């Protein structure tokens, strides 16, 4: 499962994307796995996940076919 990383998420992981094997079947599980591997994510004021370029809910299912991105707090403008 490939996961795109942006902003501070890129710094936390030390890469532009994650290409590891995740067991997660939905967004909530993905966040849990991510925090387990990179505890620094707990320091962010929020952590969203986009599935196929849309904000996803915790129960949104995910698979290797989706485009998945970690969305740390946005700060445009």
């Amino acid at each position, binding site marked *: 499962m490939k996961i795109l990383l942006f*902003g501070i998420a890129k*710094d936390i992981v030390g890469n532009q994307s994650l290409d590891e094997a995740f067991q997660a079947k939905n967004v909530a599980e993905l966040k849990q796995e991510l925090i387990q591997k990179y505890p620094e994510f707990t320091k962010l*004021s929020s952590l969203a996940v*986009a599935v196929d*370029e849309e904000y996803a809910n915790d129960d949104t299912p995910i698979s290797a076919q989706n485009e998945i991105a970690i969305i740390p707090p946005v700060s445009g403008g």
Partner: protein
Amino acid sequence: MEKKIEIIEHIDPSVIYKDLSHPASGGICVFIGAVRDTTQNQKVNSLFFEAYEAMALKEMEKIAAAASKQWNLHRLIMQHAVGDKKVEEPVVLVGASSAHRDDCFEACRFLIDTLKEKVPIWKKEFFDGTDEVWVTPHP
């Protein structure tokens, strides 16, 4: 409603009138966000903007659609810059035209507020000295 929605290298505020004027519009309201030289009492040298471009454009389209549903607008613009930006450079430009001024003022405020809240774009601040920090909004 005509709209122009872009993630671009450089924003050119000199063309906003051409981009927004319309024969049925009596009012045009524009907001431009720029790099300011200070943040929380620290001297800022420059900002760097990164976008999740495909998703950012989708979110901006949704915001534009919501604005055109809520207000009676003729034209609308949303532009966000990416890359390195120096002090006084424009980084975001939003605006709308409408028959009466209430609509374009309210829409313009909604466009910038919602863009800042929803659109996946991230800003890194470069301070005097060597500090650099990804900005994360304070609760």
